[in-house]
Each structure stands twice: as C-alpha cells, then as structure tokens.
C-alpha cells in the first residue's frame, strides 16, 4: 500500500492519509471492544471494580499494540466485517473437511499400512498477505491426507499420504480463500503498479 501511495499525486495522497487516520481510529475502537468482550467473558464479574480494571488494561493494550491485530488498516471496517462473515462460512466448510480427513486417517490407521504412498510435493500459491498464506497452510494441514512441511516464498512443500490426496491439491482451496478476501485483490489491481 505504501508503494502505491508513492505513485499517486499529492492531492489524492492527502485524501488517502485522512481516510486512513480515521480508519485507524475505528480500528482502535474495534480492537478495544473486542478485548473488552473477552475480558467480560473471562472474568465473569460485573461490579464496578472489575469492569474498571478491564477498561484500564484494555485501554493500555490498545494504546500500545492495537496495530498488531490487523496488518493493513487502510480497509474500511465494513470490508473487514464482510471478510469475517466469509471466514465464518469458510470455517464451516473447513469443519466438513476436517471430519472427512479424520475418517480418512481412521480408515488408514485400521487398514493395511502397505497402502500408504508417502510423498512430498510442491504447491505454488499466489496469495498476497501473510494471514492468507497462514490460512492456506492450515487448511492444507486439515484437509484429508496432506500436511504442510515448509513454506519458502510462494512454494509450499506438502507431505501427502497417498497419490489420491496429493492430486487433491489443485487450487480449489486457494480460490475459496481468494473469494473470502476478494476486496484485497480488487484494490491491489486498481492501484497503479
């Protein structure tokens, strides 16, 4: 984002900066509310003393490190909320995959181990943020028969337990992740390279 800012004229840069500072404020409030909800759920006390302790500590944490939770704070919050819903739908699909993968492992564990065809394959991805890569690596680990061993740059090294599961790495998951974070791809395409 900083690279694309350098390419736009000064006038539009001012607009972008103004927008991003107001966004930063919203992100601060959002992180504060999130932390406060976690505080209330974990403490379970609703008296003034404990709530004010929570307020103070959440405020200190937000003041020190509210930029840690979201890497790119130029997106508006409604984009983030849309992504959160997409992520929720994605994790529902993921739980289905986890169930399939467990049944697969159970069958392999109880069947003959001669049937195993262990191998390590490459997979190249074109995702552009760390969180998405993390998500893809975890999804590969949770789908039947495959575990990510190493990520070097764009290349994933995946240990597959059989030919069938190695062929399953055909990019469907990557497309699903891209659909969830569609907005980030749109902005990176629109901004001048």
């Amino acid at each position, binding site marked *: 984002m900083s690279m694309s800012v350098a390419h736009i004229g000064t006038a539009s840069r001012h607009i972008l900066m103004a927008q991003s500072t107001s966004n930063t404020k919203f992100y601060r409030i959002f992180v504060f509310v999130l932390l406060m909800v*976690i505080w209330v*759920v*974990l403490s*379970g006390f609703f008296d003034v003393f404990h709530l004010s302790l929570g307020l103070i500590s959440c405020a200190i944490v937000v003041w020190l490190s509210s930029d840690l939770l979201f890497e790119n704070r130029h997106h508006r919050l409604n984009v983030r909320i849309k992504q959160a819903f997409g992520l929720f739908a994605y*994790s529902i699909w*993921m*739980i289905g995959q*986890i*169930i399939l*993968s*467990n049944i697969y*492992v*159970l069958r*392999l*564990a*109880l069947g003959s*181990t001669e049937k*195993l*065809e*262990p*191998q*390590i*394959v*490459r997979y190249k991805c074109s995702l552009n943020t760390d969180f998405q890569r*993390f998500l893809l*690596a*975890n999804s590969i*680990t*949770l789908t039947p*028969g495959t*575990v*990510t*061993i*190493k990520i*070097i740059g764009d*290349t994933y*090294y995946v*240990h597959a*337990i059989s*030919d069938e599961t190695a062929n399953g790495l055909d990019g469907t998951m990557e497309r699903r992740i891209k659909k969830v974070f569609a907005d980030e791809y749109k902005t990176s395409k629109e901004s001048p390279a």
Partner: protein
Amino acid sequence: MIVSVISAIFILVGIVFFAGAAIGIIRFPDFYTRTHAAGKGDTLSSLLVITGFALYQLNGFESFSEDWPILLVILKLLGVSIFILFTSPTATHALMDAGWEECSKPKIKEGRPNHLGDDSDQF
C-alpha cells in the same frame, strides 16, 4: 435429558477419533505419517469433546436471570475450541518442520516425488 444424550454422543465420537489417532501413531511407518495421525485426530476429537462439554452445560439452564454464568462457561469453551482450530494445525506444521530440520528421513514410496529433498540444496 436429550441434551445430555447429544453431548454424550459428541464426546464418544471424539473418543473414537482420539483412539484412531493413537492407533495411527503406533502403526504408521515414519515420523511424518505419524504426525498426520496425531495432528488430524487431535483437532477434530478435541473440538467434538469440547463441544460435548459445552452442550452438557446447557443441562442446568432454566432461567436467564439465575443461570447466566452457564452462558459464560459455554462462551469460554467455544473460545477454547476456536483456539484449537487455529493452533492445532500450526503445531502439526511446526512439528513437521522441526522434524525436517533435524534430518528425520521421510519414507517415500518408490516412484513418488520428494520435492523438498530435491530442492533443499537451494535454501
């Protein structure tokens, strides 16, 4: 009553998958395939068992004004399950990576690729 039956089913299915993971760890041939069994079995079975616990908590729920602490317990359990959903595959990956760095040799079936072994001189 019906809630306890459902939660018992969740916990039992979770235990079956735990057992499958344990059998896999014993029977699979090398470190990497064993990690497959451990990583996957653990994720789903802990999710199922914890969801079972959360459902079981609903048993004593009668009125909101008196029993709201139960909701907090359920929220905490759901928080734990979301945490496991993210950390368990990460831990599996970390184990595998550590195994590779420690030069644990993977058993590769004949004729199948070992791209990581091929490329390892490049990094």
